[in-house]
């Protein structure tokens, strides 16, 4: 079992990670390594801006940054996920019932096939 205070390690790692990411982004923008803000809807490529190197199965992804450090596009993607969450509605009764039935169907299917 890990020590009690070892949990602080999590906090350090998280904070240091956050600071490094921020510095990296600022630096990449400043030295013109190719990372730049191009606005919403920029396509994400696996490296640089080579259109032939679209990430397989993720062709539909679009981001906010472009250039070599395409990871920033993914960060934008996460941001958009939250925007979608924000639009959640309380839902209709029929939706609730449908979700319940789907859940039971999944459990039932898994147990009957594999159980």
């Amino acid at each position, binding site marked *: 079992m890990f020590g009690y*205070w070892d949990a602080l390690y999590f906090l350090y790692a998280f904070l240091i990670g956050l600071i490094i990411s921020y510095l990296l982004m600022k630096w990449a923008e400043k030295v013109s390594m190719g990372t730049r803000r191009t606005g919403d809807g920029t396509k994400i490529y696996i490296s640089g801006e080579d259109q032939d190197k679209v990430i397989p199965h993720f062709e539909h992804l679009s981001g906010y940054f472009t250039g070599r450090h395409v990871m920033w596009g993914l960060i934008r993607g996460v941001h958009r996920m939250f925007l979608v969450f924000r639009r959640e509605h309380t839902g209709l009764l029929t939706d609730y019932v449908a979700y319940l039935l789907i859940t039971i169907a999944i459990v*039932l299917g898994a147990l009957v096939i594999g*159980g």
Partner: protein
Amino acid sequence: MTLPFLIIIPLFGAFSMPIVSLLGKKIKEYWAVIVSGATLAVSAKIFYTVWKTNEIILYTLGSDSPIGKGVKFPIRIVWEVDLFGALLALTIAFVGFLAVIYSLGYMKHDTGLEKYYTLILILELGMLGIVITGDIFNFYVFLEIMSIASYALVAFRNDTWEGIEAGIKYMFVGSLASSFILLGIALLYGQYGTLTMSYLAIKIAENPTLVAKIALAFFIGGLLFKSGAVPVHMWLADAHPAAPSSISAMLSGLVIKAGGVYAVARIVFGIFNPGLHAYLRAFNAPAVNMDVIGWVIVFFACLTLLVGNAMAVVQTDMKRLFAFSSVGQIGYILLGIGIGTLAYGTKAGELALAGAIYHIVNHALIKALLFLVAGAVIHQVGTKNLNELSGLAKKMPLTTFSFVIGAAAIIGLPPLNGFASKWIIYESSAMYNPVLAAIAVVGTVFSLAAYTRVLFTFLGRESDMIKEAKEPEKSMIIPMLILVAVIIVMGLLPWQISDKIMVPTARMLEQLNGEYIMALLKFIGGA
């Protein structure tokens, strides 16, 4: 034998409330406090007895003999309390007691309080019944008692549309989920001819049929709904914020535990014991593959802890944020139960289960505190919109302090109680499958983001809404401070509590030597 009093006292309290209320407003409030206090004392006694002796308490209502008189089956109900049930009973009675005290101030301006206190005692009674019963149909009866009281309490403030809408939705879909559970019970009874859980465990191990698997699926599906797991969590995000805050504290802290994750663990380990079925499979005998159910639980757990915590980040309604956070925390508990099933009989499995049980207790205390804080804010400021609550720390320092402790504990910051339970769940997940641990940590990052936002709001510049705000009255402050003290004390003794209480509880639930089943057989023999 003190066990029956755990039901008799709140039952008597609830049904005598309309008569007692005729004696005056204050009397009924004191009556509710006395009844819930006495229930707490009984539950503490039962917990201490089970913990000290490490033996399961058995009690039969009705016939003592396992053989029916005049009919083929015995007419009786078996109550069977192991350490898990006793621990939950103590938690329920403790949080219930504080919620009743809090209500003295919080519900002061409401009318129809005799109905309110009757329902709150019935809610407590339902939950206590669930955690002490050893009879699957009796479990269903208590589940319905608890659920019906919850539906009514969610819609208690019937002058607002939120309460009515949430209550109706909760009732309709909750009843459907309950029907699936009842169908599961009917299938098991039809197949095996008994309703006693321990005896069902033996019967199912002897002859595990497709019907038993279908019944298990209905139980798990229905109980996932009752736990508020994703994707059947929507009712929770509506119902918990709509209820009065003292009730939200009980709904989020207790109802989704007793009627949800506790029942999942009891059915998976009590009726379909993974060890028993793994043993049968080792000899190529017919058995239920419990790994499948373990992975099903883990799948829903990961979904729940990610979506629940992520949804909490974007909320602007404080109570809705706490409700989504409850969804996220249920994910951790389910993860512990899932890994406990998958890694049954190993160190990782035992730790995971201990972590899940520990988190059930911790989350009950923490979420009760957070909802009481939300109630204090609504009571004093009149809004739960985070955009209007800026600068609350200066006007309500004690409430803000309570929130800070609650938020830090739920994120899992040492040295508070939430840290220890989450840490055990992370550790056991990492031992079983590091990917699951990574998912659990990502969930916590979302949780951190959500609560940091509220904290910044409280500490921000003073808004117009809170100019007149001041601390609530003592009856509301004291329960919050008691919870704060318990959270801090439990946080300072994390491994002692884990080693002395949670691990023995997990062992008793796992029943490596069939303790739960043997207790019944030793006592009386058959069904």
